[in-house]
């Protein structure tokens, strides 16, 4: 960087931009990098009284404990987190793109705006409210879904949706979908509007129908946006959520509902073993970094846009 002969000149030219970015750099330093010192706790037997500076170091025993306690419960927890994260990622991306394309093809402007507004409203609801709604819809007694399925004759007796481990991941996935599809589609809608309209015109003169215009113009036009968002979201896979699993979960589905965050809360904070909680948190961060790096690398290899 410093070998660049024009470095100082560049700095001078971009003075304002650099100044503008300083607050954000400070923000990131304070809230993202400084707390990393707390990672030391994971290698200690941390006690609040002695603090980070004076707690006893125990090496990797907290990590070892994570993977050996209770027949490898933590491995189960990782599986759940990854599975629900992937469901969120795949469904979230596909539905958001599909929804954005449908909306952009919608010709009636007022209707389009109304639909867009309604569809992104759930994003502003707190997860607590969303789980409340999901819980009521899925209930056995007077639950909307059971009532509906009974009325069309699809089922004979009510299904206890929340008691069956096999449904749980999908319930979380679709709840997230309901909440976020509208919101996530905004960025794709913006990308679609930036596609050159001449392309569509030219294509329709060449005889392309609606579907082939979507297939040959809209989707390729969206590709860079999709890839960048995918890379960023892959890093979020392990943030598969906490609230919804925490509030909808119960003993019966515990084996599939516990995510890393819940585990940290239960065994780390709830049982006063902060070091264990930190160790689980570090594990999560490291895996996330690897995932981001891998997907970025893959994107570069395929000659696509990449994050860095």
């Amino acid at each position: 960087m410093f070998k660049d002969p024009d470095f100082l000149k560049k700095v001078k030219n971009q003075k304002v931009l650099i100044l503008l970015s300083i607050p954000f750099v400070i923000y990131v330093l304070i809230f993202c990098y400084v707390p990393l010192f707390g990672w030391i706790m994971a290698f200690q037997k941390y006690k609040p009284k002695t603090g980070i500076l004076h707690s006893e170091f125990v090496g990797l025993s907290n990590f070892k404990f994570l993977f050996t306690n209770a027949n490898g419960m933590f491995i189960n927890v990782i599986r759940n987190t990854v599975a629900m994260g992937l469901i969120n990622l795949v469904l979230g991306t596909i539905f958001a793109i599909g929804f954005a394309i449908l909306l952009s093809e919608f010709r009636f402007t007022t209707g389009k705006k109304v639909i867009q507004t309604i569809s992104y409203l759930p994003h502003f609801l707190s997860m607590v409210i969303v789980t409340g709604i999901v819980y009521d819809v899925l209930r056995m007694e007077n639950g909307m879904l059971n009532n509906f399925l009974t009325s069309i004759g699809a089922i004979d007796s009510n299904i206890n949706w929340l008691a069956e481990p096999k449904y749980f991941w999908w319930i979380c996935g679709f709840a997230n979908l309901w909440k976020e599809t509208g919101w996530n589609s905004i960025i794709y809608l913006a990308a679609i509007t930036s596609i050159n309209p001449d392309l569509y015109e030219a294509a329709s003169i060449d005889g392309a129908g609606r579907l082939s215009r979507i297939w040959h113009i809209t989707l390729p036009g969206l590709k860079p946006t999709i890839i960048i968002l995918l890379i960023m979201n892959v890093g979020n896979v392990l943030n598969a959520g906490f609230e919804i699993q925490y509030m909808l979960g119960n003993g019966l589905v515990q084996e599939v509902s516990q995510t890393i965050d819940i585990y940290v809360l239960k065994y780390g904070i709830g049982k006063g073993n902060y070091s264990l909680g930190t160790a689980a948190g570090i594990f999560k961060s490291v895996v996330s970094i690897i995932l981001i790096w891998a997907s970025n690398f893959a994107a570069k290899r395929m000659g696509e846009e990449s994050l860095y």
Partner: protein
Amino acid sequence: MKNYKKVITFSMAALLVMGMVSCGGDSGSGDSDSGSGGSNAASSTESAGGATGEIKEFTAFHAVPGTEIDSDNEVQQIIAEKIGAKCKDTWLVGQTAAEAMGVRIAGGDYTDFVTAGAALPQMVDAGTAVAIDEYWDDYPNIKNFYTEAQWNAIKGEWDHVYLMPQFGKRYMYDTGTIHNDEAFWIQTRVLKDQDYPKLETLDEYFDCIEKFIEKHPTMEDGTPNIGYSILCEDWRYFCLENAPFFLDGYPNDGCCIVDETTHKAIDYNTTPTAKKYFKKLNEEYKKGIIDPETFTMNYDTYISKLSTGRVCGMCDQHWDFNDGELAIKQEALNKAELKGCTYVPQGIVIEKGIKERYHSDAALDVSNGITITTSCKDIPGAMKFINDLLDPEIHTLRNWGVKDVDYLVGEDGLFYRTQEMRDNAAQESYRNHHLCPYGYFPLYGGMALDGINACNPDNQPKEFYDSLSEEVKECLAAYNAETYTQLLNPSGENAPWYPMWSYSNNLTSDTDNGLAWANMAEVKHAQLPKVCMADDFDKAWDEYMNVYNSTADVQCFLDSLNVEIQRRIDVAEGKK
């Protein structure tokens, strides 16, 4: 149009000015508050009663569920004017106690007062609990609240007293009217329908409910009756899991059975009684007597179902479902059908001949109490607040309300209430707006300090009996009882190690026995509902036992209990 605008402009400006003035006034008085804090504290004894409008405001967090009262609560204001201080109580919402406290301990940021529950040792460990014995010489109501021996027990292994248990104090004697603890509860209408049978065993209990459901499948409005409901959300799953030791005739040690001759801890999860109990639940579940969605219910759903009066019975602690029963009582004022829907306790055992021990004398629970935190800026003021709340006059205000509004005084000095007063007290909105019990600050049980009345209306024998609905009176009479406790065996003397849950509640997962205890709970949470719902009970039970024994080091946990039992016996015998 122009005029209209002017009017708006002026009124906005006026509002703004008013707002600024009132804000200024507020902050001014706030300043003088903190300024006079020191002097107030120094002259703590004389300022009781002589408040000059400077009211200190404290904050408290109690790691138990509760209802926040209105900010303009009337009795709270009366008390504040008398003692010069008030406290905003906040309660546990949506989290478990351990999680809520864990977050606070990790952050080091507390309210002035905390009811930390099982997390207190961690707080003390972190150095954030105030040693109240360093301050209590000026506050006799606090210092004399417990005997020296009791304070020593509270101190335990620590060098100082860091907490003040709220509920362990009996003044004079206990009137023993209500059973606030665990039992198999059943609605009076169910008993009435079967001509008040004597229920002793689990089979008889479920039999009674089955017959009722057969005869009355629905409520009057057509919603189906629910035979039996089990709450198993998070820590409240004791409603499902801890019945086996009661069924075997042992008192509520919470985490184990303690053999009275060998003084050894026994795991109640694997006893033959446990298997029989879960087998029974499994049968009843298949018969549809148990609510099919019971295992996925959260606490709110459980209480709201109970509030409709549809649930015939359950095994629970009375304090845990009290909100639901209060709602039934309130609704019953307008809906006659609900009058028979309140609950009475039954001392159910597994086989005839076992003596049930559901009712125990309140033991001083040395692990639970109120703590002043290091976040409190005015520790003497906080001490004075607790001290003043134990003043006889204030204590009556907290527990009975305002004289002539909430209760009347008879010629013999006995307090009583009119039906209207009782109905008021049954209304949640009235309670929140008017009554302020400061229920998680230390209070006397048993009798009130005047020696004539009981500590609160529920414990006043005559008032208690008069306030019962006709249905409950009839039910009690059928069993030759006048109080709820008389439906159960009288409490025996508490063993020196009782209650063992005050030990297990304090375990953390960074010790081997604490980890075993956490893992046991983890397995039971997942497996017990499966066992109850299984098509093939025996297979499910075997699998549960397999997972249970391979996941948790139960023996390690029991060994640590044995050590603790012996330690407590030694303490009681003065060997320590």
